[in-house]
């Protein structure tokens, strides 16, 4: 029981910290970096649901992120839709595309799935990059509106946007938390564990894999949409394969298939790369080995390492307890 209260306290503490963060730093640039990190976290949660919990590593994630961003950009800039209607429709468009691609992609498995989605991601990038008539090509899309007011609340200041993105991140985490801790989550985990076993337990793997895929693209779509209205300029680079691998790094370092992994990994890498900016691209000399060491020594990432340590401690505790009991 105490451990439940403990983890609840940690969660409340973290939320308070995030709420107070703007007042602690008083630095608008840091606020910008943090807001962006929150947006990446949402995308990483989507990736984690599919790769971490269902066992299907999609490398098209940046592609769906870009679809969300461009859908929002085009709906507002070219179609002249209002902010909120575009904000709702853009993730839905991403999800619809995700559904169609998932139908085909999920006919493959394991590394074939990864390679297939890698190609899909690249095709999406190429479409965005070369279809100048629609997307503006390398010139990108400018003039995307910032979030409009919710009633009297003004969402145009960086501070308001920080809280806006943070609120959506919390909502995403809540949804993921509930999913993972429900029968749906258990179903996904069963599929990751062994597809044959899941099938023989009466689970429709086709349906559940598609559900997980579509959900992951939905979260990528939300992240893309938020990115577009936060940065207000988008270029084809956001669909680049580099972004997919960034997201993948956040997830693996944080802990694949863990609930806290996306937060830990994203925060760590984003701030690390901020502080190492003087190294420019040589930063990769640090991240590369870090990632390799992580995969070798702690496949569960930092969160996995922590929970392993925690489980061991509990085991020792209970062993002590039973010993004491025996002596009595």
């Amino acid at each position: 029981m105490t451990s439940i209260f403990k983890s609840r306290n940690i969660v409340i503490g973290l939320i308070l910290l995030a709420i107070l963060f703007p007042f602690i730093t008083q630095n608008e640039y840091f606020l910008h970096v943090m807001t962006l990190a929150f947006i990446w976290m949402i995308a990483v949660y989507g990736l984690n649901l599919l790769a971490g919990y269902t066992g299907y590593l999609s490398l098209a994630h940046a592609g769906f992120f870009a679809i969300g961003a461009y859908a929002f950009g085009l709906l507002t800039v070219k179609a002249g839709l209002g902010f909120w209607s575009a904000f709702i429709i853009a993730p839905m468009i991403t999800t619809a595309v995700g559904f169609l691609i998932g139908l085909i992609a999920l006919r493959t498995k394991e590394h074939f799935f990864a390679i297939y989605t890698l190609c899909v991601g690249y095709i999406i990038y190429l479409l965005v990059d070369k279809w100048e008539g629609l997307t503006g090509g390398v010139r990108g899309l400018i003039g995307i509106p910032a979030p409009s007011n919710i009633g009297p609340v003004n969402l145009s200041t960086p501070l308001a946007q920080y809280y806006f993105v943070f609120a959506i991140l919390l909502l995403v985490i809540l949804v993921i938390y509930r999913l993972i801790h429900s029968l749906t989550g258990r179903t996904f985990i069963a599929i990751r564990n062994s597809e044959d076993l899941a099938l023989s337990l009466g689970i429709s793997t086709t349906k559940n894999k598609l559900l997980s895929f579509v959900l992951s693209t939905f979260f990528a779509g939300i992240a893309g949409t938020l990115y577009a209205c936060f940065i207000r300029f988008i270029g084809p680079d956001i669909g680049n394969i580099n972004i997919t691998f960034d997201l993948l790094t956040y997830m693996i370092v944080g802990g694949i298939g863990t609930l806290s992994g996306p937060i830990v990994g994203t925060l760590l890498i984003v701030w690390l790369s901020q502080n190492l900016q003087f190294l420019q691209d040589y930063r990769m000399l640090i991240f590369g080995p870090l990632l390799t060491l992580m995969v070798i020594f702690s496949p569960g990432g930092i969160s996995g390492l922590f929970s392993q340590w925690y489980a061991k401690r509990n085991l020792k505790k209970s062993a002590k307890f039973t010993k004491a009991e025996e002596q009595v």
Partner: protein
Amino acid sequence: MILETKQLTKQFGGLFAVKDVDFTIEKGKINAIIGPNGAGKSTFFNLVSGLYRPTAGQVIFKGRDISSLSANKVAKLGVARTFQTTNLFEQASVFDNVVVGHRLRTKSTLFDSIFRTRRLKREEEQCKEKAIQVLQFVGLNHAVDQRVANISQEEKKRVAFALALATDPEIVFLDEPTAGINPDETAELSELIEKMAEKGLTICLIEHKMQMIMNLAEQIMVLNYGEKIAQGPPDEINRNEEVIKAYLGGSTSA
């Protein structure tokens, strides 16, 4: 007769893994399939449980042709199975591994999961109760909260049994349930299998341990090179010349 195969055939390229097998499984009995390595026993299981589609022939379960159904639909009808390798999620607890076993009898959707509806809560409770119940049945009360990675091979087999039982099956196919465990534990697992049959379940198992099979099974089918070479009660199989030949090779006097 609860399950029946008619002329069941599976061909991989030019190879017949299972060929024209007619087999009937009596309700409430312990049936066994034996045969040398590569005789097609596991393929037969995969055909019956819907993981493979037969090249020809039929699988009939309670009077219904299930040969074209997918594995998850077959499971829903009441056909459960275990695998040679246990396939459990090692990092999770025994309990968490088994809870999902009852998922096929629930109807909760994504919507229920996100909004924590009453139906989800009720069905989750139902799955958890089922898990406790089947874990008790297989004799794992003491290991419910342990991580699968920390329990013995024999206990893992019991978890696999529990998972199969959590699906509320009428017939259970056990693929080499005692592979890789010692004789004492084998005897204990045999008892568990008998207990399952006493409960009214129909059992069909693949096994290599002859002594165990002869004591346990009421009906045995022998496969060799994908074809059925004998079927009958243990003492009959024991005397069957063709079986002896298949197992020991060469002359019948062996």
